[in-house]
């Protein structure tokens, strides 16, 4: 593994409650990403970060917010969880734009979230 941990690894929560997932890296990579993976949809980008305090939306960002106050941590928050947010969430990191070109993304082990 590329020095990426996610916590918690499993979580069950109730509809309407806030949930925060944490991604922690030890690689000092600049770029961090949050994806969700659902059957029939593959991996879809939720939000990404290109530096401390620099974040942007992905293709499925509604209902999610992120924060990155330190290089090593990227937090994903569901302000008010809904059943449609039941999914497996993956964090990824990338050195980004090495030599002016895109770098490989490395993935964490995932968090399985169930919203009842």
């Amino acid at each position: 593994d590329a020095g990426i941990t996610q916590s918690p690894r499993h979580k069950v929560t109730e509809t309407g409650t806030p949930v925060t997932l944490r991604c922690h890296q030890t690689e000092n990579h600049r770029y961090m990403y949050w994806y969700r993976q659902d059957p029939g949809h593959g991996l879809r980008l939720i939000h990404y970060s290109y530096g401390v305090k620099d974040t942007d939306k992905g293709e499925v960002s509604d209902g999610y917010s992120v924060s990155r106050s330190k290089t090593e941590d990227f937090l994903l928050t569901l302000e008010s969880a809904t059943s449609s947010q039941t999914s497996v969430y993956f964090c990824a990191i990338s050195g980004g734009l090495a030599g002016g070109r895109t770098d490989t993304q490395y993935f964490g082990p995932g968090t399985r979230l169930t919203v009842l």
Partner: protein
Amino acid sequence: GESVGLHLPTLSVQEGDNSIINCAYSNSASDYFIWYKQESGKGPQFIIDIRSNMDKRQGQRVTVLLNKTVKHLSLQIAATQPGDSAVYFCAENADSWGKLQFGAGTQVVVTP
């Protein structure tokens, strides 16, 4: 919009045979492609990548071929082993922020 897709959702391969997993992409501006392997309950694992200035790249038991003329990418696995059973994703990048677009995945099943 642009998309990355896989031709076969499931590939059954006999142990010891070679596997070929195909991927079509539609964004001609994509300049970087990656293959990932995902085992059940785990995150995607990087296998091999290729940039658009190349048409072939080899790793350990794996080869990626890129045909830009027909926008086609393939992953070849030599002497497939039971440990190769997994879902394989191709991904393309055409974005300066490093965002990847993933295909739906191909399930590879290795039979004895």
